[in-house]
């Protein structure tokens, strides 16, 4: 009895010591604070992720109680469907266009707004951020009138400088860039605000030191400010890429994927399969493939931009 009791007491003491020492106990309050987030994240993100994986192996309508298991057939179908291939091409083309354009112009505008000579900085911050706050559907509807061929204000303004009518949303060769224009307008404020905040974090002494060493304004910006903003630029590029691959609402309202599928994106096609075609398995399979595309791209971007400089 005695011999059996001693180790038991010892293990209890060790357990108590471990409990007293452990990070869990020390951080218990903190864990309790993040528990609601973890629970919600598990319910609304992790759970649906695994559910989507499972759905991608089934065939049938979301409203249907019976969905037969078809293995990887949905993934195989993706490779033979011409529209699927086109929507992946469109999304890629859109992403490689919109991300650099948005990040570079946002950086330029951030430098402009952040310039010491510019007054009413808060006003400009509010102005550039406003489009992001407005409903995507509402702004898309407004843009459909701005981009209209006969009556559109953009057509009118371009006409003043001799540029002929552009069929922004109805010419298959141009329509994706019409969408890009709207999305650029909507999204640029987010990047500008990020960059302005990052610029404030660059110590002024470094700028002064560079100027004393004879650096021009361009050199100060490109050799001092921008390199020190690298983590924020990286974040901006990664988020821009993810959002670009997830483009949906502007396309849905402005062109509904047309003309001739020239603006059809991956998420637009996922939506159609899930809610209009009654093919939730295909939708889920496309969602998984989208994830597999975004993950490595984001990883490479983080490695490349994170290591450089």
């Amino acid at each position: 009895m005695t011999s059996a009791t001693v180790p038991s007491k010892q293990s209890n003491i060790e357990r108590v010591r471990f409990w007293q020492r452990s990070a869990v106990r020390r951080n218990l309050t903190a864990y309790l604070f993040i528990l609601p987030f973890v629970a919600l994240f598990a319910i609304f993100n992790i759970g649906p992720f695994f559910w989507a994986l499972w759905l991608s192996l089934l065939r049938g309508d979301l409203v249907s109680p019976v969905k037969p298991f078809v293995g990887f057939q949905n993934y195989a179908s993706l490779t033979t469907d011409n529209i699927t291939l086109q929507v992946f091409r469109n999304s890629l083309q859109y992403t490689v266009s919109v991300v650099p354009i948005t990040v570079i112009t946002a950086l330029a505008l951030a430098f402009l707004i952040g310039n010491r000579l510019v007054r009413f900085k808060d006003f400009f911050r509010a102005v550039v951020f406003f489009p992001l706050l407005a409903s995507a559907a509402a702004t898309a509807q407004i843009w459909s009138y701005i981009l209209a061929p006969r009556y559109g204000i953009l057509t009118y303004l371009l006409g003043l400088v001799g540029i002929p009518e552009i069929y922004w949303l109805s010419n298959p060769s141009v329509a994706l860039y019409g969408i890009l224009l709207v999305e650029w307008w909507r999204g640029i404020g987010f990047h500008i605000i990020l960059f302005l905040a990052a610029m404030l974090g660059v110590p002024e002494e470094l700028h002064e030191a560079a100027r004393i060493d004879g650096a021009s304004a361009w050199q100060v910006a490109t050799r001092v400010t921008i390199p020190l903003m690298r983590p924020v630029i990286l974040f901006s590029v990664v988020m821009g890429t993810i959002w670009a691959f997830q483009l949906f609402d502007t396309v849905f309202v402005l062109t509904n994927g047309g003309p001739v599928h020239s603006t059809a994106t991956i998420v637009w096609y996922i939506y159609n399969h899930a809610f209009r075609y009654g093919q939730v398995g295909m939708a889920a399979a496309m969602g998984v493939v989208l994830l597999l595309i975004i993950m490595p791209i984001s990883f490479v971007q983080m490695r490349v931009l994170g290591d450089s400089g």
Partner: protein
Amino acid sequence: MATSTTFSRREFLVRTATAAGVATVGAGLAGCAPAAPAATDAGEEAPAMEVITLTMWKGPHKAAGDETKLCAQPTLDMLQEMRPEISVDFSEIPWGQYNEKFTAAFAADAGPDVSYQTESFPRFVNAGHIMALDDMIDASDFDRSFFYDRAWEPGTYDGTTYSFPWIIGGSNLFWNKDLFEQAGLDPDTPPDTVEDFLSHAQAITALGEDVYGFASAPKDWHENSQWPRRFGGHWFNDDLTECIVNSPEALEGWNFLNALYHEYEIAMPGAISGQEPGVGGYFRDDKVGMITAQNVFANSVRSEKPEFRLGAARMATGPAEGPRGRACYGGVGMLAIANKTAHPQEAWTVIQCLVTPELLTSWIGCLGFMSVAPSVNFYPDDEVLTTAQDTLQYTFFWPYRSWIFKFWDIESTSIESFLLGQRSVEEAVEDLVVQLNDLLKEEEGA
């Protein structure tokens, strides 16, 4: 706006009773008659009545909120007067969210008790979310002849009636009488044949550089897809197992449509008509002489430009014989009951009430659609809208099937591709037929 919205309730009753006849009104109202009050002793208060609230969803046919304010709520107030024990909680579901809302609701077995359904409703029937109505119809002695015979077809699936006709609409030819006059044409006489149609359109196009005889949106599957029919073609074989819209007759129709754009150049280029303000806007602004559009379009033009001199008639006929030669789009909007409703009898009562001449006029007449009941004319004094009621005979419904959205997407993209000059008609139509036959095979095997 529909003039009917200004009618008083008394005027409605007088007009509809005149139009429909006492017997018909009586038949329609039978299932909607107020429940007999519970017998009580003299002086004793009637027991408190339990009010059952039903949910009802419908896509809007007016600007957001207007249908509820002008048409739905006044009608539902009248319904509650008739049946105080039933209250209807009505929601306008924007068309842009219609599929996702219904899909999510039915997937969660939480669909609305009463819903407005269109071409894609067999999706929900297949999944067991819509209640079969035959037993209720038989038990209530509802006279099926109250509606046009063909209005029952879309709601009947595999021989069972799943939904009740409520709205019927169709397209017809609209023309701008001012442009007709300016082009030296009789403003009161529409073109009778497609040859007349072409010559009229050419005369109007000759009026100026920015004026066109005809326009259609390149992606408008309802309007563009009628041309093969007008030339004798069919979209599908009889048992709906094969797409045959590449027959020689159908191709003749496709080529005629294409020629309006690229050979005769009397159609507004698709790149222009496909963007705002759209075909209707250009027509209203005197840039286009003729269009085909759903009959509710008449109300839009009138509200936006009251002085517009609008002509409306059946479409010019192609070589096909009978109604097919003047084929236009038609469709039926229906009322259905959720299988999981806790109050099927009350939901059925609501449906019966909504199709009584009075409430039908109050809601559907207010929207500007045609009456689904031949005995009820919403607009006896309106020449244009009465014409549209007459042209319903030339309308063709799409198959009401679960694959309809995919079909429309394939169809509209193929047509759009040749109207925008991306492909030849033959290439586009062959591709269309291959894709549709694949779709039909896929559905057959599902």
